[in-house]
Structure formats: structure tokens, C-alpha cells
């Protein structure tokens, strides 16, 4: 069953079309990757999926509702977002940041109760952030911070998890660990995961389907084997690569040449 669908979505920035005619569907419980070169409109698309940006053309449907008509709180109960970075103006602790995920479930004046703490604790265990829950966000490494932001999104108890280039600042160990974490969340929590990433290899290994964007337009959408081909990568990234089946999984593996 389709949970999120874009219908001919277009977005203009300073009079220039950065996204045009994007139509795709994400099924309930799917793990979808969005890839494409820098400036191809991936992050903009993610913001449109979450209703932060309103498309100039077309619309985004959450099940059978136009998300432009939903209020922020309703949307926040369904869609959780892991942003690319975290700005540190005031010294919140890890636990405080994670608990903020409960916001859409609490009224204006209600404090977090036992149930909310339990949910946050479970999210921190899942993301292995419990040990530094009393530390300030500023004292963490990039990878730790990223996991805290994921814990916050999990605490939100959404049905859809959107991630914006979560592996950008991570070393290979943490890159793999992060995709593994997304897989765990996806399987255990029955979450629909949509991840924007630069890492074609990891996307091919973990995602059910991949959307490849070029210059704001959908170039190809399908299984990793359909999308990640030498021809597609050459046309979109203007780079020659070698693609062969991964020796373990048989999924496409990209080698730079």
C-alpha cells in the first residue's frame, strides 16, 4: 500500500526550477534511497516530502491526504526527520534533545511522563546513545550527534523516517553502522525509510528501491539493479564507473575508475 506519493512536484528557487515533474510512490514499510549529484535537488525534495517547503507545482499525498492541508502537529506524528546537521546555540543535553521528539504527542503545557521517558530510553538504547545521555550535544563527535538526532526522530514514533545525507561526516565504520541501524529500525519498528544519500554503494546494498535525480528531474526509479547501471551513472554523474555484482549479495557494486 502506498504511504507517500508525489504527483508532478515542481519547486522554484529564485525563479529557477530546482525540481520539476517529480512523481514517485513509496510503499508502506519500504526502504527507499534518493541519490543524485550535488545540487540536483535531493534535499529540496526531502523538505517537500515533509511539508517544510510547499511545492510550486503538483502535490504530495500522505495516504489520501494532501500534506499541504495537514497541520504541522498531525504531520509530525507521521513523519520524523533526521536533519543533516545540528546547530548549537544553547547547551542542551543529549537526553533533552531526544525527549524533544515527544513534542507532537504532548500538549502545550504537559511535561514528559513515565511513558515518554520509556520511549526515549528505548530509542537511546537502539541508537546506542544511552551512555552519553547527560553530555552536551557540543561534546559529541559527528557520528554520535547523528545517532542522537536519529534517537530523537525514533522517539517521535513516526511511521515514516526521512534522513538527509546521514553519512556525510562519518568514517566507513560509522557509515555502515548507520545504514545497519536504519535497517534495524525499518525491520523492528516497521518504519518506512526514505534516505537521501551520496553513497551509491550503501544505497544499492540497503534500499529496496532507488530514485535517481538529475538536474531536478527524476532520471530513473526502480530496484538497485535497475537504477545503478554504468550507463545511468555515466549520464547523471558524467563519470565513468565499473559496476559488477557484489560478491556477497549480488547487488550492484560501483567501482570508481
Amino acid at each position: 500500500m502506498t504511504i507517500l506519493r508525489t504527483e508532478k512536484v515542481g519547486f522554484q528557487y529564485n525563479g529557477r526550477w530546482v525540481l520539476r515533474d517529480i512523481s514517485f510512490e513509496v510503499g508502506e514499510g519500504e526502504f527507499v534511497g534518493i541519490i543524485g549529484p550535488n545540487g540536483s535537488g535531493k534535499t529540496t525534495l526531502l523538505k517537500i516530502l515533509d511539508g517544510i517547503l510547499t511545492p510550486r507545482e503538483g502535490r504530495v499525498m500522505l495516504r489520501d491526504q494532501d500534506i499541504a492541508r495537514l497541520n504541522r502537529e498531525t504531520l509530525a506524528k507521521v513523519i520524523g526527520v533526521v536533519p543533516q546537521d545540528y546547530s548549537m546555540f544553547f547547551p542542551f543535553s543529549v537526553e533533552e534533545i531526544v525527549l524533544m521528539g515527544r513534542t507532537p504527542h504532548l500538549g502545550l503545557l504537559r511535561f514528559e511522563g513515565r511513558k515518554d521517558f520509556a520511549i526515549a530510553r528505548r530509542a537511546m538504547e537502539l541508537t546506542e546513545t544511552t551512555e552519553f545521555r547527560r553530555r552536551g550535544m557540543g561534546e559529541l563527535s559527528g557520528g554520535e550527534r547523528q545517532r542522537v538526532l536519529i534517537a530523537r526522530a525514533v522517539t517521535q514514533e513516526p511511521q515514516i523516517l526521512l534522513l538527509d545525507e546521514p553519512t556525510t561526516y562519518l568514517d566507513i565504520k560509522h557509515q555502515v553502522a548507520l545504514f545497519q541501524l536504519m535497517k534495524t529500525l525499518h525491520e523492528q519498528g516497521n518504519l518506512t525509510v526514505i534516505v537521501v544519500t551520496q553513497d551509491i554503494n550503501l544505497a544499492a546494498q540497503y534500499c529496496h528501491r532507488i530514485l535517481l535525480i538529475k538536474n531536478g528531474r527524476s532520471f530513473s526509479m526502480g530496484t538497485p539493479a535497475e537504477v545503478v547501471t554504468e550507463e545511468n551513472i555515466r549520464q547523471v554523474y558524467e563519470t565513468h564507473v565499473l559496476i559488477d555484482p557484489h560478491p556477497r549479495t549480488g547487488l550492484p557494486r560501483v567501482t570508481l575508475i
Partner: protein
Amino acid sequence: MVFRSVKLLTVLEISFLLLLALAGTVVVSLFVGVTDIGIVRGVTALLYGWREGYAGFTHLEKEILFSVRLPRILFAGIVGAALSMAGVVFQALLRNPLADPYILGISGGAAVGAIIGILIGAALLPLGIPLLAFLGAALTVIIVFGIARTGAQLRSNTLLLAGVIVNAFFSAIIMFLISTSTSSDVHKVMFWLMGDLSLATTREITLTGTILFIGFAILYSHARPMNLIVVSEETALQLGINVEKVKKILFVAASLITGVAVSASGIIGFVGLFIPHVMRMLLGPDHRLLLPASFLFGATFLVIADTVARTLMAPGELPVGVITAICGAPYFIYLLRKGRGF
């Protein structure tokens, strides 16, 4: 009573402690001054005397305590709480710990509004002057933000600079108004400008007190959204907050309490910078704790500052704004030197 939340318990505990500190400060400052009553005798007479109409005090002492000092102390508390809370809110909205109603020129804007009110005789209307002061404050917020906003970004340095410029402009306007006015009310304006808590009337105390508590209720009910906005506006949106609406409410409420406080007490600087900052260092950045703590500690601080102002050069008096600026300005410089200090 069983609390379901650790956080709520912390807020209540700390608020209670700060409330005790405030009460203690009020009692002490009540008995300190030119007519020295002595704290032990004063407290004894207060505790045992209420049934016999405070027989432990002379008639003159009663007059001084209840008609002169108590209103002034109450008023100092109200103004201190108002300016500190406004400071908390402006710092959160601008995501900058150097923001404060005085530095951003908002107090100055309120002052211009109030002075125009005094000179055109708006005092005859109920709420005339506070209303004009609020308009001045709100207008300043719009102007300062208009100057500082480049594209979608609000740069802190530009913002502080805009505050300085707007402040200078308002000082000029105030000087212009004072020097061209032939009204006999000019001396009233001069007194008031220096930040004076001694002129408070019962009506002003009631009005500022009421607005303060309404403002506090509005701000406190948005304490959680404020936490999220401080992290990032996009995060707040993603977690279900209607950011634009919340920001508008916060701006109006903070401008209102600033405007009312300034219209009644004049320009008292740095309280709104200093108090939230100290509270954030001690208690962390959660606004659900920060707002009530700054409210109570701000009240305590200004009561102390005003007591110092009226006793230091006794029998003469200093404007309380002098005391707060002497404490606050070096602190501001220290924060600037420390860079992004908090």
C-alpha cells in the same frame, strides 16, 4: 502528590527555593534604609504584630514601611521579573545570548513612545502611556529586525549593531523632544529616563503586575516550542510547531511586558541580559525552568539593586539604572570577549 515527571518536580523545587530567596530579600530590604529599623526587631514586629496592628512599629515607621518602601519593593520586583523574562524570550528568538531589551533598543523605543505620551498628555487616558510604550517597543522590534535581516538569515552581529544604531537614533529623538518641549512635564521625563522606581503609584503597580502575570502565562505556555526554536526553526517545524505563529505570540508578549515595564520605570539596562544568562549557566537551557527561574531571580536582583541605590549614598539616592549598568556593562564586555559565550 505523585509527580509523573522528573522535570516538573525540578521546576517546582527550584522555583520554590528562588521564591524563598525573593521573600527573604523583600523582608531584608524592607527594614534597610535611611530610617534603620533593624532586621531582628522588624521581623519580630512583623510576625507577632499583625494582630495588634503592628504595635511594634511607631506610626512613622509604619508609614515608611507600608506606604513608601513596600510599594517600591513590589514595583522593583515586578520590573526586574518583566525585564528578565523579556530577555529570556529575545535571546531565544534571536538564538543569541547577547540579546536583551535594552541592547536591542527596545527599551529605548518604549521610552520614546512613553515620552511622546507624557508630552502630549496621554497620561489623562487610562493606559495611554503604557500603550504608547508598547507600540514603541513593538515598532522597534520590527525596525531592528528589518535592518538585521539579510535574506532569510538573521546575523547576530548585524542585529546587535542595528540595536546600537536604533538606540542612538532614539536617544537623539528623546533629546530633541526634551529640548524643544515647553511643557512643564519635562522634568518628570528627565527623572523617569534615568530608571526610577520610587515614583510608582498603586495604579502603575497593579497594571504592570497584571500585565506581567498575563505575559508570564502566555510565555510559559510556549516554553517547549521555545526550546525547539532555539535548536532550529526547521526542527521545530518538523516536530509539529507552528513556528511563525509561536514567534509572533512571543514577540508581542515580550514587547508588551517590556513596554509596560519601561513606561512605568524608565530605562533600566542589562537586567534582561544578565539574569537569563546566569540562570542558563546554572540551570541549563530548558525554558520550562529558565522562565520561572529568571522571573524570580530577576525580581530578587532588582529589589537588591534598588535597595543599594537608595542606601549607598543615603540620604541621597542613585537611579537604579546606574547600579544595573555598573554590574551589567562589564559582564556584557566579558561575554563579548569570550566570543559566543554561554
